[in-house]
């Protein structure tokens, strides 16, 4: 009986997920002409830009990040890079100083006591006098044309207050990095579709650029449960500020290489999402905030809870299935038998049909995302890893969603964030 009730609960989840996919695909294709037009936007003027590079023990990747910024195809007299060392214990600050000496008109190196990413970015913000302000995590790298492309959005859309880039995982090698490569590619599509709906959920750390006046109007970054990029997005939506997406502005970020690192990064994101969303609960189902209030936020919030249930159910079903297979092998031993093809044994349940539709749409979204970006990824090579990792990913989601929900409602301290920073 309980099993039947749990199984029946799967239908609304599948319905919601399908609705979500169709809504995004419809929105995307409705705007396909506009998206095409965006690609030919000219840059008639070059506003001044400050890029903050907050770092904490980033001696391994900082050079690469700074080199990629210095190689940007953008007038160098309009570019300022502020490296803020947030109390690193390694050579981060001396590397920053090295660049400051070499490029004194562009790079500034600042060091301060450790206070968290938002404090580092705010230091850079207080020193900036530019028209535009952005941030690039010290484990991320930009493509030369990216800034110019992003600026074209600001120049051609006077009401655009922030522009997000197209993010890919840099050279995925480990299993979990390959999984993230797929997730980020899907993110390329989602961000574009949400952008067309004025409902972008987050202006991510790697190279989202904001007009400086945004901070003058709504204030600087906040600690915001260690997800300052999500909180400022909520604040921008609350103040009806337009956030756009530039699908051609490429940024590469290093994804956590281990499952543990991935787990703690996602745990921080999930916890931050829940805490901040609850603080901005007046945005939920509020028509004043458009598609963000009516669609993105409620659905994303629901998916954390429903996702926990669905992941548990899916994992339970998988375990039951594989236990049966193993039990059978234990009883009968391994015997080779030619597989027979009989349509009779095909899974033709309602959930199976809808799941097939959803997987097809998921693959289609990946394909569309790949055609959007100038860097065509050989994503199909990572797909087998992605699908084979499903049981581990489901287990990770169950652990992180339940922990994030538990910690949020019991107000548990965020000590694990340090582990995320070390791993991620």
């Amino acid at each position, binding site marked *: 009986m309980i099993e039947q009730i749990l199984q029946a609960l799967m239908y609304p989840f599948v319905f919601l997920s399908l*609705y979500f996919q169709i809504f995004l695909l*419809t929105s995307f294709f409705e705007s396909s002409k506009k998206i095409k037009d965006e690609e030919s936007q000219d840059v008639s003027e070059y506003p001044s830009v400050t890029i903050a590079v907050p770092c904490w023990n980033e001696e391994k990747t900082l050079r690469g990040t700074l080199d990629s910024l210095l190689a940007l195809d953008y007038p160098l007299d309009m570019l300022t890079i502020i490296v803020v060392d947030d109390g690193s214990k390694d050579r981060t600050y001396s590397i920053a100083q090295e660049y400051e000496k070499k490029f004194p008109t562009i790079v500034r190196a600042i060091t301060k006591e450790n206070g968290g990413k938002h404090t580092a970015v705010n230091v850079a913000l207080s020193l900036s006098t530019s028209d535009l302000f952005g941030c690039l995590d010290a484990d991320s790298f930009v493509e030369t044309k990216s800034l110019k492309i992003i600026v074209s959005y600001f120049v051609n859309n006077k009401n655009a207050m922030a522009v997000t880039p197209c993010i890919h995982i840099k050279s995925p090698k480990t299993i979990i990095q390959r999984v993230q490569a797929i997730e980020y590619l899907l993110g390329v599509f989602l961000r574009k579709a949400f952008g067309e709906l004025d409902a972008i959920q987050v202006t991510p750390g790697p190279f989202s650029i904001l007009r400086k006046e945004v901070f003058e109007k709504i204030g600087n970054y906040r600690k915001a449960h260690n997800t300052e990029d999500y909180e400022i997005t909520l604040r921008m939506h609350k103040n009806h500020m337009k956030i756009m997406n530039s699908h051609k502005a490429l940024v590469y970020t290093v994804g956590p290489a281990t499952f543990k690192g991935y787990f703690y990064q996602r745990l921080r994101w999930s916890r931050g999402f829940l805490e901040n969303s609850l603080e901005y609960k007046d945005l939920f189902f509020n028509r004043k905030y458009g598609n963000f209030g009516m669609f993105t936020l409620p659905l994303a919030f629901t998916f954390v809870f429903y996702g926990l249930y669905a992941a548990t159910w899916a994992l339970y079903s998988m375990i039951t299935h594989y236990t049966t297979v193993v039990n059978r092998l234990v*009883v009968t031993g391994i015997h080779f*038998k030619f597989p027979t093809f009989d349509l*009779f044994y095909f899974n033709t349940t309602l959930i199976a049909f809808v799941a097939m539709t959803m997987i097809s749409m998921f693959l289609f979204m990946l394909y569309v995302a790949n055609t959007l970006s100038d860097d065509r990824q050989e994503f199909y090579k990572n797909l087998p890893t992605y699908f084979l990792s499903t049981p581990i990913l489901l287990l990770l989601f169950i652990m992180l969603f339940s922990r994030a929900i538990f910690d949020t409602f019991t107000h548990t301290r965020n000590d694990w964030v340090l582990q995320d920073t070390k791993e991620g």
Partner: protein
Amino acid sequence: MIDTKKYTFTFFVTVAIFATAFFASTFFSNKRVENIKFIQDNIAIDILASEAQFDLLKEVPCQNVDDSMLSPELNILGDKLSRTETDRGAKDEDVIYLKKYYALLQVKDYILSKKLSEKCGERKKQVFIIYFYSNLGDCLDCQKEGYVLTRLKEKYPELRVYAFDYNLDLSVVDSLKAIFKIQSALPGLVIGDKTYSGYKSIEDMENLLPDTLRVATSSLEIATTTKKGR
């Protein structure tokens, strides 16, 4: 700002996909039932034909009795029925009906194979196992026993396995339970007119099966190998 039309449109498209999936699922599920009914009808005809043939040949020597008198489709049907039961649930009316029909066909097949054995003695002696199971969750070993029997059927194609749901509300099944004194301690097995209860592994079963079965299978294997070798 909010495009209500788009929300509504998406809702109807989602409903349409769900409805299509629902109809497709129902369609294929019904097709499955039809497929099973079709096989059952075929088996029923086979059995009737065999019985008639058997009556006709009553006075004829055993050499003339056809080897294919017993329907080979009975085993396939069992697997398909089991799959349908998993999909539609044990309480589904169609499933219960099909199971009853299947039980009756098995009993008829069993009687026919007994008759064959009696008439033709060792030459046409059939080896069979009658198996009682329950899928109400009160028989933890029944699933394992099912694997054992499936494997035995693969290993010894001559072996006939008749599986009955202990809880099936059918008088014929009750009669079988009474004849073989099957208690509620399941799985219950009948091998060579002897009744056993509790789980039996492949090795246990092989020890209980007559040697003739193994000899028949190994000679069949030799014959196949020789044919392939030519």
